[in-house]
Structure formats: structure tokens, C-alpha cells
């Protein structure tokens, strides 16, 4: 495993960037119509509970990443097998987000550029970042965090001053009762983006201040959750429920509405800036987790060597997982939550926690 040390603030920044990532771009929770923001808040609540599973596991093995303590908990070979599944999962997720990102650029500004080219450029940058190690990624995060916040605040101010916000669009609250909200919460918002904190089990050992892990992670999740909720509320308030539901990228449509004094308009570039930065971090972190996990399981000393092969798999994966955007979205909303997110983010960690709890209790109750 790489020897890296990451400070509390850097970790916080990475979590915020990661969690906001693509969740802000897509119409998260749009199944719940105007109550999408409630579903997102529910998701945050659920995500915090799920995070405590990861946190307990971390407390048992503070110096090991997920793939290593898997082997301790369920035994060497079964642990390796599950760890391998996790690596595939991380790679798949990295591919999905890479596709998301490329698809967005291809539909909005790079209409004639092949998806493959856009994705290649991104993955090459990410492989390079991986090559430089996790510390570098964290430091880059610090710089971009500021930029993202500046663009976000600027964008928000412009939207407010354009007089675009019509909060009455949020009404009626809970029109069809809690059912659609809960459904959206279980299907979507708990696993995406909050459940994705599972990736951080791979990098938590880098944390230099063990005591602060809980507060930093929760703080990052909550800040990201609030940002996503505010963005969703703004999207609905600006676009109205119908358009929020219909738009492929609601935030892009919202930003496109900005029009002040006849010259501050067409600010899609703010959105693109955010998109590229956040996309980069989200893919990079998933990618890093896959590489670190593979190095750990296959006991490869220099994990940098794995950058190119895994990068290539992620790149080709991003092109081949779906042949068109409809298939891609269908896959993301029907298959991923039930067959990937729930098992990998919630069920397996929960079982692990129970086994770890029993094992560790045994140790305590029967001292040698």
C-alpha cells in the first residue's frame, strides 16, 4: 500500500467534491417530482447511518483498507474474492461516471467530437494523477475546492439576481404523500451519492488524524448534502417541476436561464467548469480505490504499474457499458441500485460489521 498522509481538511475537501460530483449535475431524485429535495435529505440521513457501518469497520481496523480487512474478517480467500468483486465494482462505477461526464460534454458543447476522444483525455489525466499518488490528488483538491465554491457562489448570486427563483414551484409539498419520496430514497438517493462513501474505506487509512475521521467524513457528507439539496431546490424553483423532470441536465438548463443586463448571459461555461472539476475528482477517487484494491489483493508492490491497465479497462468500459444514452440511464436507474449499490454499499458492509463484531467480541471475552 502507498504511504500517504492526508490532512483533515484535504480529506474533507475530497469528500465534498466526491459526493457533490455528478449528483449535482443530474436530476437527482426527479422521480419524486417537486419533493426531490426531501428525498435527497432523506438520502443524506440514510447515508449518515450507512456511513456509521463503514466507520465502525474502520474503528476495528484503522490501518487497513477495505480489501485488507475483508481478508481478516471472512478469511483469506473468501476475503480476496469479495475484495476482487469490490475492485470490479469500483471500476464499473469509474466507467459509469466517465461515461456520464463524456456524454454530457458530447451532448452540450462537443457535439461532433467522438465520446472516445473526450473520455480518453479525461482518463489520461486521471491516470497521471494516480501516478503522482493520493497526496497529490488531495492537494489538487484543495485548490479546486476554492474554485468550485467561487463558481457556485457566483452562479447562485446570478440566479438570485436574475429573479429566476419562484419558490412556489416547490408546492404542493408531498402531493402524493410520502410514498414516492420513500421510493426515490430507497432506489436512488441513499445509494447515490451518499452510499458511495464506501470508496473512502479504501483511503481512510491515509488519514493522519484518526480522531477526526468521524467529524470530517460526516461534515463533508452533510455539506455536500446541503449543497445538493440547495441546487435541487433552485433547479425546481427556476425550471418548474415539468422541465426539471424532462431536462437531461437540469442544472445546465438553470444556468442557461441566467440573463442580467443583456450581457451577463449564456454562462454555460460556469457549469462546464464545475462539471470537469467535479467529474475529475469523482472518477479519480473511484479509480484510485480500484487501483489500490487491486494492488492490495494481488500483492503488487508498486501500484503505479496498475494505472495504465486499469485505466484502459475503465476507458473501454465507459464506451461499452451502453450503446446509447437511454440504455445508459436505464441501466443506472434499474440495475445499478439493486444489483450493485445496495449489495456493495449496504448489505455486504453490514454483514461484515456483524462478523467483525462477533470476532472482536470473542477476543475480548476470552482473553488469552
Amino acid at each position, binding site marked *: 500500500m502507498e504511504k500517504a498522509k492526508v490532512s483533515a481538511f484535504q480529506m474533507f475537501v475530497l469528500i465534498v467534491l466526491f459526493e457533490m460530483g455528478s449528483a449535482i449535475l443530474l436530476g437527482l431524485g426527479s422521480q419524486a417530482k417537486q419533493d426531490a429535495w426531501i428525498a435527497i435529505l432523506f438520502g443524506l440521513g440514510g447515508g449518515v447511518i450507512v456511513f456509521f457501518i463503514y466507520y465502525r469497520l474502520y474503528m476495528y481496523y484503522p490501518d487497513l483498507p477495505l480489501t485488507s480487512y475483508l481478508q481478516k474478517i471472512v478469511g483469506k480467500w473468501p476475503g480476496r474474492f469479495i475484495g476482487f468483486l469490490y475492485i470490479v465494482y469500483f471500476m464499473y462505477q469509474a466507467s459509469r461516471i466517465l461515461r456520464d461526464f463524456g456524454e454530457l460534454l458530447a451532448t452540450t458543447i462537443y457535439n*461532433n467530437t467522438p465520446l472516445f476522444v473526450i473520455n480518453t483525455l479525461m482518463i489520461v489525466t486521471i491516470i497521471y494523477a494516480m501516478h503522482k499518488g493520493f497526496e497529490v490528488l488531495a492537494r489538487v483538491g484543495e485548490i479546486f475546492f476554492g474554485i468550485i465554491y467561487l463558481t457556485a457562489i457566483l452562479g447562485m448570486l446570478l440566479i438570485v439576481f436574475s429573479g429566476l427563483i419562484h419558490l412556489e414551484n416547490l*408546492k404542493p409539498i408531498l402531493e402524493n404523500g410520502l410514498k414516492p419520496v420513500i421510493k426515490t430514497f430507497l432506489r436512488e438517493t441513499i445509494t447515490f451519492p451518499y452510499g458511495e462513501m464506501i470508496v473512502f474505506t479504501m483511503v481512510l487509512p491515509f488519514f493522519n488524524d484518526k480522531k477526526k475521521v468521524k467529524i470530517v467524513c460526516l461534515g463533508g457528507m452533510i455539506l455536500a448534502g446541503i449543497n445538493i439539496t440547495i441546487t435541487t431546490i433552485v433547479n425546481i424553483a427556476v425550471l418548474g417541476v415539468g422541465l426539471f423532470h424532462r431536462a437531461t441536465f437540469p442544472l445546465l438548463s438553470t444556468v*442557461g436561464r441566467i440573463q442580467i443586463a443583456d450581457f451577463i*448571459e*449564456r454562462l454555460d461555461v460556469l457549469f462546464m467548469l464545475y462539471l470537469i472539476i467535479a467529474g475529475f475528482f469523482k472518477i479519480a477517487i473511484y479509480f484510485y480505490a480500484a487501483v489500490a484494491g487491486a494492488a492490495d489483493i494481488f500483492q503488487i508492490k508498486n501500484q503505479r504499474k496498475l494505472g495504465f491497465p486499469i485505466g484502459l479497462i475503465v476507458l473501454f468500459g465507459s464506451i461499452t457499458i451502453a450503446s446509447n444514452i437511454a440504455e445508459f440511464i436505464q441501466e443506472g436507474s434499474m440495475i445499478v441500485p439493486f444489483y450493485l449499490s445496495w449489495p456493495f454499499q449496504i448489505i455486504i458492509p453490514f454483514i461484515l460489521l456483524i462478523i467483525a463484531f462477533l470476532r472482536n467480541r470473542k477476543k475480548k471475552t476470552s482473553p488469552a
Partner: protein
Amino acid sequence: MKKWVKVILLIGLSVPILTACWNQKELTDLAFVMALGIDKGEDDLYHVSFQLVNPGNVSSGQNGGGQGLPIAVYKSTGRTMTEAARNATKKVSRRLYYAHTNVVVISEEVARERTQFLNLLDSFARDPEFRTTTEILIARGASAEEIVTTLTILDKLPVSKITKEIKSTEAMLGENFSITIDDLIDGIVGSGKEPVLNGYQLIGMKEEANKAVNLQKTTTDAFLAADGLAVFKDGALIDWIESKKSRGVLWVLDKAKSTSITLKWKGKKNALVFAPIRSKTKVSTILKHGKPVINIKIENEGWLSEANTAIDLIDPKTIGKIEKLTEKAIKKEVQISVKEAKRLKCDIFGFGDVVHKENPDLWKKLERDWNNYFADLEVNVKVDSYLRREGVRTNPFWSDINK
């Protein structure tokens, strides 16, 4: 030595990537489409007029613009918008570029036919190049082509005349207001609010409108003017609300900012003019005997811009009376518009949305037949006007000459 090779190789490799010119478009290869005019031909095709800007002739400043016309209009036909746009490339040497399209003019004929009209809209909403802030207009008493080909005198670009004009009417008169494609589609989709669009007329000698000679006179032979609101129901134009009756629509939709309200004073007509400077409208609903009742509350403040009669403006009681008169006048305007909309059985005010937001359960029952229900809806209007200032005179000179 080896390091140098690497560095040079790296720089060499990044050159083709960093130029970012995969599908670069030179400015001189683009034709900026400023406005689109869509007509219906006898062949059931869309006849689309593309108003392109002629950049050299628009630039202002020390050197002045060129001698030619600021715009050029090309026409093409097609079964769909995309087909028409692609067919146009046979006639235009440059690539049509839609990112700066500010106005789409649709002829009344097209707007009256549901499928023809609706078939247009998705192409505007879906194309990433097209901006959703684009204004949509209905050509009234003229073809869309005529509107798009008309030259204008103050603003070199006819499009900026149209968009600025709509904004200034919205701000100063309140009979037309800015309506974008998104608003239109939202209105068509939702059952609680029907959309309206601005009508646009070509007044004067139509055949002169597209000639440069038209611009040599101070009173141009033909000019563009906003006129009326087109009312849509079930995705097709059904009727017009005339300018006189349309102000009430803007009051209800909370779009009215300023306007002029002419009042009668002690038997004298056109005696006083009240000019609001800001206004706020709130629409709410309550249940009365199980039926929804709409309450419109309009609050505005303004100043007295004319007093053409002997009147004691120093007396606060007079001010109170003027306020009462204004309230009555505005209330009447709103009632006229509401009556007009009820006649058309078309809820252009979004009362349905208000009921939906306030009382979702009731809305579910009424939703299907809302427009008919709307025709018998009880609508109460309450206006609060405040006359704050009287300009730079106290009593008008009329008070002195009649002595």
C-alpha cells in the same frame, strides 16, 4: 539526453490535443441566425425564413457600418424544422449557427393547427445550440416571413428592436410581456395554466418593409409593432386577446410593472393619469361551499403624471379619492381580462396551478375538466393603490384659470 527526448515527445504529443480544434468553427464560416420565421405553405411543408446577420454592416462606431443591409433572409422548406434547416444549406454559404437566435416568429396559420405547431417546439427545446431564452411570437395579419424580412430604423438589427421593444412595453405599458419557449411548453403540458404568446404586426406598406428605402424616411412606410396576446388551448391558437383587454392579464400574472391609468374626475373625462411604478400581485384560493374561489390581490404604488382639471392636490383626502378611483379602474381592467378568458374557456392566468398548489386533493378531482370549470369560477379582485407623489407641481394650472 534521454530526458530531453521525453520532454520533446510530450510537448509534441500534447500539441494536437491542446489546440482543441476538433470541430472548430471560424467566425467567418458561421452565419448567425438572428430570427426564424415559420410559415405554412400550400404543400404542407414548413416554409422557414432564416434571418441572418450581415456582420460587416452592423458594426457601429467611428467607421460606421458598411453600406449594405444589416440582415439577409434566406428561405427554405421542409417537413420538419431540422429538414428545413438542412435544406437551407443549399443556399447559404456558411454554417447556420443558432446560439444567438433571439426570436422565433410563427405564423398564425401554423399556430392554429395543433400538430403543425407542436411539431416545431421540440426541435427548439432539444437542440443544445438553441437557447431557451428565445422569444416566441405569433405573426398577426402578416406572414412570419414578412415580419422577419422587415428592416428597422433605430436598431440596426430587427431582432434587437423586437426583443427590446417587448421588454420596454412590459416595463412601461404592460400589454405584452416576454415569453420564452420554456414558458410556452410548460403551459402546453400543464393543465393548470394555458399559455399566451405575443402577437406581432407589420403596419403600413408591407411591400416596402424589406427595402433599404424604407429606412430613408423618418416615418418608415412599414414598421413592426406588438399587438395583442394569442391564447392557446390544447396546443393550438384559439383566439386573441386584444391589446386593450390584455393589460389585465399582465396584472394577474404579476408581470405589470408600470402603465398609465386614465381616470375621470368629477364628470371630466381623461382628467387624471396615474402611473404606477411598482406593483405586486398575489393570487390565492380559498374554499367556499366546497368550491374553490380565486382571490387576486394587487398592490401598487405610483405617482400622478397628469392632472387636467381643477383639483386640490394638496388635500390628502383628494389623494385618497384618486387612489379609490385607480383601484376601481385597475379592478375593471382585470375583470375584463378574466371575463375574456372565461369566454374562451381558457385558464391563461394559471388559477389551476394555484388550486393545485394550495389544495392538491381538490385539484385531482377538477384537473380533467379544469377549463370548463374555470369558466364559472368565482374570481374576486382586490386592488390597493397608493399615490405617493405628484411630480414637480402641486395644484395644476387648471385651478387658477377657471377662477
